[in-house]
């Protein structure tokens, strides 16, 4: 079933905190739920669909429904790491189109910073194949570093090209008062920052931050009754990638499939997109995703992001105008929710004026969760202002 015109994002809210010292995880979820419902102008009692992922405390939706006081008739707890919220938008839109619910709430919260649990290991440490990796001291940045090095080897991509992703994000973050990092950086700043795992420097890595976000999706009748701009979910795709029994390829990701599915359902092409939120756990994540989504040819991602091409008002594809995970916020080590929220801001014309894309009517949001180069899940959504 095609979801075009059958579900709308009516509410979006990003928690302002980046360091939730005295705020519980449950409270973050509640704060963002209330924020998104208020943004939409919808009463909590009307929520009949609830979507959350592995970041929510307790046992999936049970604990959160209790805490939030929800009585959903449809629930979904699909978890693909940080991209889960992209998948949730697709699932919520389909559930609404299918009549399973009319008002869907999606929440994310995390406080790795305040809790002192900085995630540098490999997600889902009880995955069946991890025992064969543990003797070699795996860490998240090391996997992405191997992706970057192989990309450089095959296509001649350079550290300076990767650095442009961070430079663009920093140009946007300077206008975001909530961003963790607001200083504009240069290519030289990035490549001269300390090496974490060759060839990735500290400034090639996203921030670790607390916070969260929420979305409210509604059916067309409700969307029409609200005073907010109508943001349609025009297409959604999801796909998994993995080591494939010792045959892993580092230079492409599941975005090849999630992107193709989303574009096909939306009936548009990458060249139609006015603004893109691209998951930026590391600079290489963006380069790989842009290639896999079809914004440029495979292997040309480095050249595509260089020279400010991702900077709003400067380049051809404005991206992550909130500063992204590289500068603004990567709440709970899961950057998917904030990607959708900034896309919604752009489509509503509510991004910061300095980074707002003129006449932004078609946006893409893309997430890469788990670990690129091994177990990962991608979700892509195409959103449209009607």
């Amino acid at each position: 079933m095609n979801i075009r015109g059958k579900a709308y994002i009516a509410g979006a809210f990003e928690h302002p905190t980046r360091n939730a010292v005295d705020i519980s995880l449950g409270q973050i979820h509640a704060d963002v739920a209330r924020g998104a419902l208020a943004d939409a102008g919808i009463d909590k009692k009307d929520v009949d669909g609830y979507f959350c992922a592995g970041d929510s405390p307790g046992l999936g939706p049970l604990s959160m429904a209790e805490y939030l006081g929800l009585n959903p008739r449809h629930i979904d707890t699909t978890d693909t790491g940080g991209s889960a919220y992209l998948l949730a938008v697709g699932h919520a839109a389909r559930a609404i189109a299918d009549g399973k619910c009319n008002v869907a709430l999606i929440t994310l919260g995390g406080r790795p910073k305040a809790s002192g649990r900085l995630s540098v290991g490999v997600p889902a440490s009880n995955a069946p194949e991890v025992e064969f990796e543990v003797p070699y001291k795996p860490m998240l940045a090391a996997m992405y570093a191997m992706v970057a090095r192989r990309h450089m080897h095959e296509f001649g991509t350079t550290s300076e090209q990767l650095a442009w992703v961070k430079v663009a994000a920093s140009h946007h973050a300077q206008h975001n008062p909530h961003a963790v990092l607001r200083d504009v950086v240069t290519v030289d700043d990035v490549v001269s920052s300390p090496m974490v795992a060759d060839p990735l420097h500290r400034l090639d890595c996203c921030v670790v931050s607390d916070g969260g976000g929420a979305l409210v999706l509604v059916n067309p009748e409700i969307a029409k009754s609200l005073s907010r701009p109508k943001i349609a979910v025009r297409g959604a795709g999801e796909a998994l990638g993995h080591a494939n029994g010792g045959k892993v390829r580092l230079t492409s990701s599941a975005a090849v499939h999630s992107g193709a599915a989303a574009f096909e359902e939306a009936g548009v092409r990458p060249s139609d997109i006015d603004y893109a939120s691209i998951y930026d756990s590391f600079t290489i994540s963006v380069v790989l995703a842009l290639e896999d989504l079809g914004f440029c040819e495979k292997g040309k991602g480095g050249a595509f992001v260089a020279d400010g091409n991702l900077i709003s008002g400067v380049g051809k594809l404005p991206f992550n105008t909130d500063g992204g995970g590289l500068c603004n916020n990567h709440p709970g080590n899961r950057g998917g929710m904030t990607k959708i929220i900034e896309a919604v801001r752009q489509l509503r014309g509510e991004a910061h004026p300095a980074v707002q894309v003129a006449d932004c009517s078609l946006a893409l949001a893309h997430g890469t969760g788990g670990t690129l180069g091994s177990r990962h899940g991608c979700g892509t959504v195409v959103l449209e202002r009607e």
Partner: protein
Amino acid sequence: MTATPDIGPDAYFQQQLEAGRIQIQKCDSCGAHVFAPRTFCKSCGKDALSWVDISGKGEVYSNTTVRKKPEDGGDYCFALIDLAEGVRMISTVVGTDPHDVRIGMPLRAEIEDHKGAKRIVFRVEEAGR
């Protein structure tokens, strides 16, 4: 299941390592080698996996040097290695400065003690050997 020992494949793999043998699985049906250990072939889906010795030959597919302070153990090599058998595994390269490891370097597998167990590591194969 053909020629599969009466313990799970994960445990058998480690048991062989402890006994000084590096074995991976090969599908009797389609001929594909399989790693990590499992009970069925990822290529054809059949459960006809046999354990075979590896040639020991490999090369670096990609690698990184994870930067650590000396007091935290120092920099170390983390790598994906292509075995001659056609499977790719996470491992490390020993006997060479991690900063000197390059994609495509020819390697030979060996077994080393690591935290009270055995693990597979790779050493750069010198020309002419």
